[in-house]
């Protein structure tokens, strides 16, 4: 922070002098200041505090109290009470969450919230992950970092998801925030190892550097060597997605001089032998990403006979294991010592079969999160169901992501999981065939389900035993899973399925639809029936302008709507844009699609509420109506 900066950093509420009972003052004052949590004690405090400026006192008290509100929905509610609450809340909000980077401008956000220490920003919609959005669409971090550099010099944490981040942005970040502690980049792209080097080198207080599912360009820069040469504050270093060779010796030295390191996830270019050397230097790890868990480039690196189990056994606090990028199954016994303590296991890169899984999963009684490849087959899933009674989240990824092949998992695996893992809350399941019966069973056996995402990879596939559409299965999910907030549907679905969703999915916030429905009614049911709907992404479904119009009453409550390869026309989208001035309606073509482009037909519609109107960084191929 420069010496010229006369703004004070946000004061730590813990150091504020204790106030007389806040509830007392507020209650006796306006008689109804909302359920402010009180301290025990009566309301005699008014006499104790004969304030000459009651408004100021009220605000100070409010600020003290509001510091305890962390949930952003509660904060938003508090800010709506009256102007002084709005001001007090704005002054005390230290964590800023921007769900859509284009919904508000950096200037507006930093003008309202002046004492922010932690920022989270989300950019592109999820379908961009699957190449449905043209390159260079936007979601640039640059305007945010340049505004925050001036507005929040004491910023400590940045979390970005699906943003475009450049090396220059990272350089500005490293230069501007003296007290910077945590950088988490999820599904981001646009930067290289050069940017990482600058952050490692200049952010001397850095505790967390997490790169998750991001694309990092290899600039031949040895960024690992750029961390401070003495003691570091590092607590978390995650770089399993970085597809670059790493200077191993430098990494080893870094781990040795980072006594606070708890989370380490290395990339696939580290062999088992190298991992071993890291582990023996860091037995305090709680989260470990194992890299290749095998060899690299076919080389054994001289450690073939080594027994790695003691290194794992020495990590007594290990609860979260991932990596396994090029697993040598014969090395798996090394992790047996830690299985009993694991709460999270990510095998989603490990090409192992049921027989190789069983001896591992058998021990994992405490497992709550499990990601795996369908190479384990239904039999492997049955083993999971038998062993993991505490399972809350399951993801089954396809080893071969094509359609029209014999898949290794099916309704048998899903049924088994539903019977064995009654506490299941979240599931993502890729398969080639499914039945309504299994989905219905899951809806009844797992009443705590919050996230249900089923992907039947063959488009429009019916129940493979009965030949019926999958309507009843998904209907049962929305009917029986009363806590459901996120749903992804697939398989052969008629408008009936959507009528179920509209009728029963009252808490659904996120809905994902592909190759489904018969007519406009499908979308109408959802838009008219789901009051909590915030994020709706649809592709290749026969919904047109009439359906789009049916959601006009709701679009301001939503974060975004995505519709690609549906039956929308430019005229229809234009009407929506005219009717709703605070909605930004973007229309574009996907440059990769080679199908004939019909005049007036809209290939991609992406629309979102915004306080700013059309953005000024839209590329040529985006039309804002």
């Amino acid at each position, binding site marked *: 922070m420069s010496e010229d900066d006369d703004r004070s950093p946000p004061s730590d509420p813990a150091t504020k002098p204790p106030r007389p009972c806040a509830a007392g003052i507020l209650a006796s004052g306006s008689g109804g200041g909302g359920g402010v949590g009180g301290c025990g004690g009566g309301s005699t405090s008014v006499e104790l505090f004969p304030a000459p400026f009651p408004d100021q006192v009220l605000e100070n008290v409010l600020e003290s109290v509001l510091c305890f509100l962390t949930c952003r929905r509660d904060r938003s509610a508090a800010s709506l009470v009256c102007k002084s609450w709005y001001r007090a809340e704005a002054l005390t909000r230290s964590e800023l969450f921007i769900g859509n980077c284009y919904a508000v401008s950096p200037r507006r956000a930093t003008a309202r919230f002046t004492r922010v220490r932690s920022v989270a920003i989300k950019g592109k919609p999820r379908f961009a992950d699957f190449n449905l959005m043209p390159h260079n669409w936007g979601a640039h971090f640059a305007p945010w970092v340049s505004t925050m550099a001036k507005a929040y010099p004491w910023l400590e944490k940045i979390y970005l998801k699906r943003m475009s981040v*450049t090396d220059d942005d990272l350089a500005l970040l490293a230069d501007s925030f003296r007290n910077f502690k945590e950088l988490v980049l999820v599904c981001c792209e646009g930067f290289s190892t050069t940017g990482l080097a600058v952050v490692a080198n200049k952010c001397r207080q850095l505790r967390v550097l997490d790169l998750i599912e991001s694309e990092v360009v290899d600039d031949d820069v040895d960024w690992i060597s750029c961390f401070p040469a003495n003691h570091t504050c590092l607590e978390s270093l995650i770089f399993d997605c970085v597809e670059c060779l790493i200077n191993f010796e430098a990494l080893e030295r870094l781990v040795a001089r980072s006594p606070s390191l708890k989370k380490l996830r290395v990339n696939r270019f580290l062999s088992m032998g190298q991992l071993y050397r890291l582990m023996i230097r860091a037995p305090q790890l709680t989260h470990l990403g194992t890299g290749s868990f095998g060899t690299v480039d076919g080389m054994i690196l001289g450690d073939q006979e080594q027994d790695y189990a003691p290194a794992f056994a020495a990590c007594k606090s290990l609860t979260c294991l991932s990596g396994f990028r090029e697993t040598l199954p014969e090395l798996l016994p090394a992790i047996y010592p830690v299985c009993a303590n694991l709460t999270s296991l990510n095998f989603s890169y490990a090409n192992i079969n049921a027989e190789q899984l069983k001896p591992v999963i058998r021990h994992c009684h405490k497992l709550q999160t499990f990601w795996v490849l369908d190479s384990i087959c239904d039999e492997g899933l049955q083993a999971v169901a038998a062993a993991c009674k505490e399972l809350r989240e399951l993801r089954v990824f396809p080893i071969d992501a*094509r*359609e029209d092949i014999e898949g290794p998992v099916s309704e048998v695996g899903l049924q088994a999981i539903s019977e064995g893992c009654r506490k299941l809350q979240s599931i993502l399941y890729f398969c080639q065939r499914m039945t309504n019966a299994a989905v219905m069973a899951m809806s009844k056996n797992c009443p705590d389900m919050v996230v249900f995402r089923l992907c039947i990879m063959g488009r429009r596939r019916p129940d493979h035993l009965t030949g019926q559409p999958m309507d009843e299965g998904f209907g049962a999910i929305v009917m029986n899973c009363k806590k459901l907030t996120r749903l992804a549907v697939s398989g052969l679905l008629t408008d009936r399925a959507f009528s179920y969703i509209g009728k029963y999915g009252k808490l659904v916030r996120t809905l994902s639809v592909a190759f489904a429905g018969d007519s406009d009614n499908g979308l109408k049911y959802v838009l008219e029936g789901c009051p909590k709907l915030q994020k709706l992404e649809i592709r290749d479904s026969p919904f047109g302008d009439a359906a789009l119009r049916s959601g006009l009453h709701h679009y301001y409550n939503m974060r975004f709507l995505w519709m690609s390869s549906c039956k929308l026309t430019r005229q229809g989208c234009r009407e929506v844009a005219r009717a709703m001035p605070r909605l930004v309606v973007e229309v574009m073509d996907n440059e990769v699609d080679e199908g004939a482009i019909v005049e007036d037909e809209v290939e991609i519609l992406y629309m979102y509420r915004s306080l700013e109107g059309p953005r000024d960084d839209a590329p040529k191929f985006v039309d804002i109506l």
Partner: protein
Amino acid sequence: MGFEETELRLGLPGNGGGGGGGGSHEGEMVMRKRGFSETESSDESADNNVDLKLNLSSKDQPKAQVVGWPPVRSFRKNMMAVQKSSTDESTEKAVSGGSAVFVKVSIDGAPYLRKVDLKMYKSYQDLSDALGKMFSSFSTIGNCGSQGMKDFMNESKLMDVLNGSDYVPTYEDKDGDWMLVGDVPWEMFVESCKRLRIMKGKEAVGLAPRAMEKCKNRS
């Protein structure tokens, strides 16, 4: 993408990676194998081929692969390919899918070098804009200004720039020669460029005659 190339099929050759501009697109429009029909006197476009496959795909159209389906992120789709051929694929290919053209870009005086994927750009102008943004933070070229960077790719202004002390973009081509950027059509440049070096104008003077020579030989 290695995975597709090793798959045996007699359909129409796939497009490979993205069309015009994308580096890492998965979109291929590939005709699937038609079962036993290839053994007949095959006219690939004939609809009268009897599909002797016994699976129950009841859909009328051939199941061409569709962009972004199934909804699995590219690094997972590439995973099997990467695991099989990690010895022979470079790390860049694993990220970008095989049709990218990464070249190193160095600029005299700057502490770091960069890599760019030439397939991301459609013209010299695009490349110039991107490089301008990339290197604009370095004070060594601060006096060059953004206008200078925009102009240097303009073929007609090359000679003006050479005479000054501005920066000049040069590249090493397949033959190992250092050439001035801009003397060949864009597509040819992408094919032949191995690395880029942005040098100080004075040092580039000697290149001009060679560039002209090569240009004459090619045309």
